[in-house]
């Protein structure tokens, strides 16, 4: 507003300057306008999940305004959170995600340390291989993995198919390459003098790793942990292929296969389940957004 005043009052020489800042003010207004439009586009599904989850089946089937809750109720939440089956899904998902995070870190951190700091025969090839592995999608491997598990099951007599714990071995193929890759980047950014100082201070390589590298690269470690957790939590294809019994399912598969039964009016529960399933990553994201984004963008930089 003040720019307009300057425009009128000032000598003609200032017009150029005035028009520039007026341009900027308009650019800002347009930016907000479009940001609001895009925010509506991006937030409609989750908001609609929430709206539907607060409705009773009767209200959903009554076909009133779908964008508004006339008789809010928590009955969907109560029903799901007291259902053994749903809690079982939640428990399976949690245990899988947490154990996969631990396995991922145990594999990734030492490997990234070795690849970032110890030049050995084939280390460059291995680092490239790690990155390429990260680019191999799950939809390429689910069929051979399924058959492999079936063959191993036949050979050893150990039940692998239709057991949630088999996911503990499969998920790391998705998490370890990326986590190793970004940890190589974080470790490589630590100045070489720091390990030399530690070496002179008398630290072994293990002490250098645990007492210098891990604490210094903690932001990277958090980003990698978040990544491993969210990937494990969201994975849909592998559990859909490898598990079928209701007590072995993880959340995404459990919700999509058991709550959809052709009963159209079950949408309240489906949306509640989906929202509860989306909650853990959303909560982590809300509190650790900066680490989340750091992990997201780190993949595009070379380690």
């Amino acid at each position: 507003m003040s720019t307009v005043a300057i425009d009128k009052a000032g000598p003609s020489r200032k017009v150029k300057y005035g028009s520039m800042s007026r341009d900027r003010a308009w650019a800002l207004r347009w930016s907000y306008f479009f940001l609001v439009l895009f925010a509506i586009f991006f937030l409609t599904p989750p908001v609609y999940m929430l709206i539907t989850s607060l409705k009773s089946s009767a209200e959903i089937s009554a076909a009133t305004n779908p964008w508004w809750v006339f008789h809010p109720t928590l009955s969907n939440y109560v029903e799901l959170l007291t259902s053994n089956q749903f809690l079982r899904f939640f428990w399976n998902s949690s245990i899988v995600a947490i154990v996969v995070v631990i396995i991922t870190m145990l594999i990734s951190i030492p490997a990234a340390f070795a690849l970032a700091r110890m030049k050995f025969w084939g280390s460059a090839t291995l680092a490239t291989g790690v990155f390429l592995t990260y680019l191999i999608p799950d939809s390429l491997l689910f069929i051979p993995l399924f058959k492999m598990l079936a063959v191993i099951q036949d050979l050893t007599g150990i039940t692998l198919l239709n057991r949630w714990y088999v996911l503990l071995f499969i998920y790391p193929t998705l998490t370890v390459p990326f986590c190793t890759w970004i940890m190589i980047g974080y470790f490589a950014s630590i100045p070489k003098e720091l390990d030399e100082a530690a070496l002179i201070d008398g630290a072994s390589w293990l002490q250098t790793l645990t007492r210098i590298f891990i604490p210094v690269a903690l932001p990277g470690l958090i980003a990698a942990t978040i990544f491993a957790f969210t990937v494990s939590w969201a994975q849909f294809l592998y559990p859909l292929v490898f598990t079928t019994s209701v007590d072995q399912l993880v959340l995404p598969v459990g919700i999509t296969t058991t709550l959809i039964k052709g009963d159209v009016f079950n949408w309240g529960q489906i949306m509640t389940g989906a929202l509860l399933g989306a909650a853990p990553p959303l909560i982590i994201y809300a509190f650790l957004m900066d680490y989340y984004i750091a992990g997201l963008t780190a993949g595009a930089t070379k380690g």
Partner: protein
Amino acid sequence: MADVVVQQGRVARTSGTRKRGSLRNALGHKSTVAFFLTLPLILLIVLLVLYPAFYSVYLATLNKAMTKFVGLGNFTFLFKRETFWMVVKQSCIFAITAVVFKALIGFIVAHFVHNIPGKKQRKWRGMLLVPWVIPPAMSTLAWLWLFDPSYSAFNYTLSFFGVGPIPWLGDTFWARFAVILVNVWYGAPFFLIMYLAALKSVPDQLYEAAAIDGANWWQRIWYVTLPMMRNIIAITTLFSLIVTFANFDIVRILTSGGPLDTTHLFATWAFQVGIQSSDIPLGACVSLFMVPILAVAAIFILRDVTKRGNEA
């Protein structure tokens, strides 16, 4: 004193060669340590990624009962099926359209976010990234409900404008539109974040210099922003191309490939053929058709990422 030192040196030199041998042992020891540190990683990649990948090729050469080697029989069988060619076409349409729109929307929104004052950027960025954070299987359920044939909230809204009802998932065109829309919705925030990070890395002085040289906003984008971001745009686009091409969750939940298999992608069709219809060799064969395009994209990503690393 110096004499003593020299003498000790001479004595020491005789044992020097032997000691240097032990140093070589120590170096050997170092690479042994490195080997053990990377061993779990190597085992994981070899046993659960490389082996299955080659196993897949082997499986693709067997007959349905997996009792007989049929060579390229599965491939020639696929070439004769109309559904296969439809899947090829739909996979390409889906991946290319979705990636283009994700890239465009991400680029545009990144500029809008970059335009607003720094303090508010965090909040907006946080809001706009939500689709990427929600597990796609969960958010696609919300879309499924939004597209519901009888209760679609979209159709309810459109009815006020005298439009519709649109058979979102029942008609081939709209079903294809819907799966692309959901994929764009899910993936655009990733582009947004990558572009925003890239935009922030362009020094302000470059824009100021361009403004002094008389460039308008469009020229600033064309001559400053795009060249500076070229590498990150390439990496993000290629990466997204791989992920989109190999997409499973969205199509599986939204349409399961229907209506009449017209929205199937390689992944969903391979799942239907290989797992649901228990024709593992044919399923493996279908998913192997993803390899060429994935390999090409991967090679280009690797080149760009290495180049980026060298620049840094």
